[in-house]
């Protein structure tokens, strides 16, 4: 960051590009080629779409871009699953062929591939619909695709909001450092103190559901919901903070999702950059809400099922998406959209029941594991699993949940800005102490890195 501000303003973007490629290549240098392929494809496709007047040419360029991006995603993320769980059980391929293909495809999933392919596809679609003007400088466009704070797990940014900021010549401003540092500190607290402390308990319960009691399984489900939220929310805040240090604003990705009174509201508060991406680039092009009931039903289910598959190549994610889709449709058909006229507590309980039960599928290795977990959870059985409840963790969790409700529809940074110096430093002190002395001790990488 020091180097960033020491460099002349018009060269800083190039340092960011180098840093972004170094950041991604540091993990596995071979996979840099995938970003280069995505970048090159969309750079030329968008320019061709923009400059061409013939609709066929434009469509072909768009189709080429989408096929390349989705092809890469399909090959690296879904091919192994397709062979093992889809083609093999129905005998589409012989055993020998399957085995050889599986061995050939036993490579690691490139980190962040689902995020940057969606970001770059969004750009090409925007250019196609005339919502964006293509970037002329290929290296600056490469920075848009690979911008390191949000490269591996989002937020998935839009070209029209991120690119102008990357093109802008940013002057050093102490306030950017201050705001960025606050987001980073709060993000570290949420990731290291909440998510990393919950991880071992959740692992313990999900790894041995057969000896856990029903109440422990209920807790396991709730704690996983809190773990994945704090893990991903914490990461998003750190990413927002790092970008802010360099004067770039990334979009808010979470806004107290567990306070939602409906599945629809949940998706407006959970992983906002992805849900708005699906809304703008899938749901609306499919016709949005102004279609027949049957088509709307199909479209909504398609969006949720694809959203499930986006998370991972496993039937569990498909079921997770399907549960959300069905609940969303159920709300649309049977419940009033006006939440003010309905009892909020029962509605909140019903919404959270769907969200948390669906998390069981998300966390389980297979549908079978998930159904066994749920069956045992509702059987109300005792178990022999011993779990120690650390009072420090319970206090941290309480602190996190209270603050999350407090910051609903608000921003942590803006809230701090209104406080006195003493109050601000009390908050910093508390967060620094918790992050340094009370963080989790088990090695647990960011959950969303695997997607």
């Amino acid at each position, binding site marked *: 960051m020091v180097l960033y501000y020491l460099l002349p303003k018009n060269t800083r973007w190039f340092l960011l590009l180098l840093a972004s490629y170094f950041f991604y290549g540091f993990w596995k240098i071979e996979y840099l080629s995938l970003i280069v392929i995505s970048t090159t494809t969309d750079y030329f496709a968008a320019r061709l779409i923009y400059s061409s007047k013939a609709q066929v040419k434009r469509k072909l360029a768009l189709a080429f871009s989408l096929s390349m991006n989705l092809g890469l995603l399909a090959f690296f993320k879904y091919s192994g699953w397709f062979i093992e769980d889809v083609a093999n059980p129905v005998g589409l391929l012989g055993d020998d062929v399957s085995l050889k293909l599986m061995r050939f495809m036993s490579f690691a999933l490139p980190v962040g591939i689902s995020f940057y392919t969606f970001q770059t596809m969004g750009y090409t679609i925007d250019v196609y619909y005339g919502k964006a003007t293509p970037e002329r400088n290929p290296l600056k466009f490469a920075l848009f695709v690979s911008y390191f704070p949000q490269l591996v797990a989002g937020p998935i940014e839009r070209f029209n909001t991120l690119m102008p900021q990357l093109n802008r010549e940013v002057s050093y401003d102490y306030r950017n450092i201050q705001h960025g540092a606050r987001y980073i500190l709060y993000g570290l607290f949420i990731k290291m103190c909440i998510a990393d402390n919950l991880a071992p308990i959740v692992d313990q319960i999900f790894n041995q559901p057969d000896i856990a009691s029903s109440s422990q399984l209920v807790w396991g489900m709730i704690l996983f919901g809190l773990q994945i939220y704090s893990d991903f929310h914490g990461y998003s805040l750190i990413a927002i903070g790092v970008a802010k240090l360099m004067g770039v604003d990334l979009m808010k990705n979470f806004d107290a999702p567990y306070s939602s009174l409906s599945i629809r509201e949940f998706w407006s508060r959970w992983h906002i950059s992805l849900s708005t991406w699906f809304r703008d680039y899938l749901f609306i092009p499919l016709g949005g809400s102004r279609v027949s009931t049957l088509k709307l039903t199909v479209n909504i289910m398609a969006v949720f099922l694809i959203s499930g598959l986006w998370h991972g190549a496993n039937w569990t994610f498909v079921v997770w998406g399907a549960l959300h889709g069905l609940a969303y449709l159920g709300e649309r058909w049977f419940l009033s959209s006006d939440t003010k006229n309905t009892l909020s507590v029962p509605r909140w309980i019903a919404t959270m029941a769907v969200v948390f039960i669906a998390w069981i599928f998300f966390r389980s290795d297979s549908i079978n594991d998930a159904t066994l977990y749920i069956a045992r959870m509702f059987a109300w059985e005792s178990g022999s699993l011993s779990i120690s409840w650390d009072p420090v963790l319970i206090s941290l969790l309480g602190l996190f949940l209270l603050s999350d409700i407090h910051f609903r529809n608000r921003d942590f940074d803006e809230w701090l800005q209104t406080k006195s110096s003493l109050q601000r*430093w009390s908050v910093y002190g508390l967060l620094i102490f918790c992050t340094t*002395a009370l963080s989790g001790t088990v090695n647990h990488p960011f959950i969303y890195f695997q997607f």
Partner: protein
Amino acid sequence: MVILRKIAAVFLVLVISGWIFDRYLLRDFLDDHAEQKLQVEKIKNCDVVYMSASSNFPQYGDDDTRKISQMVASYFPNQRFEAINKPASHAGVFKRLMNSFPENSEVSTFIITINLRSFGADWIYSELESSLNKANLMYSNRPAIINRVLIGLQAYESLTEEERTSLRNEYWDDQTLPVSDALISVNKWCAEYKWGDWKNPKRQLADQFIKQYAIIIQEDNPRIQDLDALVHEAQHSGVNLLFHILPENLEKADSLVGSDLVEIMKDNAQFIEERYSSKGIIVVNNIDLVPSESFTDKDFPTEHYDQRGRQAVASSVAQQLKKL
């Protein structure tokens, strides 16, 4: 200037956090994650420290339930003996522990146990390494809060199961060993072994013996580098070192796999003995001291001995220790 003032303020908060952590949380944390550090505090004023993995412990059914370290101590009634035991420990852990003894410690001699398996891929890439690496961070002589932050940030090596399996197999595929006048890899040796199919327990045990002991220990082995560091540290701080190469079940290795493996094991022990004897360290090479019947684990190669085995080991170590 504003930013410098804020950095100073953050530093102050860190110092206060460190003080609170040291005073109220450190002991419980060490108890959970690095209990040997607490042990070091307790035993820093003894004369001799015996460092070992699980080989020190008595076994079920023994009449004499003393540890090896207690048996050795019985030969030196006027000396204060203590032991630090941590299952799966090795020279890398002992190195950190020795470094964590304070400068004013009264310890004059460290006995370091060495088992040959700890030099092999199965141990180097064991899943237990992650927790040992984590504990190692707490043994570092930095302010405890810094070590605690590094643990929170997971700034220690922790391989995934896939990574470990891949590294082990790579090692077992790449390293070649002299077997029946030819050079073959560990995996090939296991594959060619003639105890019948994989379900045969004898074949499984033979396989384990090959994987645990079929190594050529050389200077670049991480455990050798750890032992070198131990020697360097001992010479620097003026304490005595005694390296004790633990007995291995040579008879079983011979009957299951053959003399090639036994020769490799003996050569490795000799390599260690010669390397460190030449540096002025007393090395007790007990590789063939204990008969097969005294090894208590029958389905996996370990260094767990019954009371007769432990007594023999203790007597041998005590004889050499008298030279110091």
